[in-house]
Structures are given as C-alpha cells and as structure tokens.
C-alpha cells in the first residue's frame, strides 16, 4: 500500500491523516487539515481502512484502536 512503507511504518502523509481523524472528520476536512487535494485524502483514508487503522461511519472517518496504537494516542 502506498501509505504503508515496506517496513510497516506509515508515510508522513498517512500519519497526518491518522492524527486528524483522531477526532472524526469528513474527507474534505481531512484534506483541508493536511493541505492535500481531496482525492489524495480519500485514497489515503481508503488504505488506512484496509489496514484497520481507520473506519468510516457515513460521511465521517474515525481512527480505530489499531490506528490509535500506531500514533501512540
């Protein structure tokens, strides 16, 4: 996955997104917060969901316990 490095670490962009959804947010709010286009935010969120670090409830994305453990929160 593009936001997870071969050694299992997250890319800086993925970490920024994960931190932003520690309090839930829409894809547009995430994109604004990390100063990236919405399509990039959506792609990263999709990969974080695949990695079980994020979850989606309707329009909102939120961090999962796995994701929270990754950012040490």
């Amino acid at each position: 996955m593009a936001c997870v490095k071969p050694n299992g670490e997250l890319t800086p962009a993925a970490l920024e997104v994960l931190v932003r959804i520690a309090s839930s947010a829409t894809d547009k709010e995430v994109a604004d917060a990390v100063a990236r286009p919405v399509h990039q935010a959506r792609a990263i969120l999709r990969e974080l969901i695949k990695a079980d670090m994020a979850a989606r409830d309707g329009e909102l994305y939120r961090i999962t316990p796995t994701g929270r453990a990754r950012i040490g929160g």
Partner: protein
Amino acid sequence: MDQTGCCDALPRMPRIGEPAPSFEAETTQGDLRLEDYAGSWLVLFSHPADFTPVCTTEFLAFARLYPTFQENGCELLGLSTDSVYSHIAWVRNIEAVFGVRIAFPIVADAGREVARAYGMIMPAESSTEAVRTVFVIDDRQIVRAVLSYPMTTGRNVDEILRLVQALRATDKHGVATPAGWLPGDKAIVAPPRTQEMAEERIKAGDPDCRDWYFCLRTPG
C-alpha cells in the same frame, strides 16, 4: 486478428455527455479511483511513453499550469502504459534536469485496462502505447470534452485550461462561449426560440446584440 495485428476488440472512446468509465489504478501517488475525484473536475490525459521529448515538454507545461487548474477546481491525472517505476524515474529526471516538480499523479497502466476503457489505444497509430488523449471530466464524473492528438504533436495546455474554464462558465452562468473565449470576456446568450422573442431583442436595441440570434453579455 484484425489488420492492425491487435487481437482484442477495443472498446470505443467514451463520448461527450456519457459517464466516465470507473477505474482503480496504481499511480505515482498510490492507488487512485475515478471516484476519488468526485466533486472536482478532472483532466485525465494520456501520453505514449516516459522519457520521450514531446511528452516531457507536455509535462512541463501541465506542471506549470497545475496550480491554475487547481484554482479552477480541476485536478490533473496523467497516464501511460509504462510501469510506476518508469514514471518515478521520469518525474525525478524532469525535476533534476528541468527543475520542475510533477505534483500531480500519473497512472501506471501497464495492463492497459484504463487505456482500453477510454479508447486511448489507437492501433493504426500504436497497438501498445496510448496516443495523446485528453478527457475533461466534470464534478459529476461526466465526460464533457475529448481531445486526441497523434504521437508527434504536443498539446497546447493553455487551450486545455481554457476549455475547462469555458465549460465551468457554461455551467455556472448558462452561457455558451465564443471562439477563443477567455475568462472576463463576454459570452454568448442563448438565441431566442420564438419570432416574438427575436423581435423583442431587436427592439431593445442592446449594443451587445449584433442581430436577433447573436447577443453577448458578461457572465455573472
């Protein structure tokens, strides 16, 4: 096998007004789907091959205008049938040689799935590489314009930007745009549909109406 030596029937190119074909593809910025661009305009453009001079000039031109495309609510997405490693090497080379960063993603369509879905392979030109196509896709993911250029001729990226700006002005203000229209220019008002409306226009004596069917106004 057909006369071009290409074994598979190729889908036709999507037409103006049709939904853009969905895809999920590996790019220089990770896996992207067409749906990731919903709500934004998108210029999806193909080029024949990385590390070729005409394509390099086009990428320099697209990179120069990328911030302006974004200011106009439009993203750029390049595509060729090269691998993602080739794309990465090429954009790094462009940055090293020309000092220009390619900030938009490029699809690595080695399996040609996206190129086939969009009719970018034109066997009489090349059975393996995509020709220079441009699809302007709107925020509802409808194809709004299609351009095709041969391998030998680089595109005019200013014209592609102008095309996006003209389409957006049409959507926003309900006008058509005359030849060479640029933002700030007057646009064309829809002609009247009845004789009575045509006569009303003539009587109104609007200096921007050259005749009953030809009236201009500033959008907005």
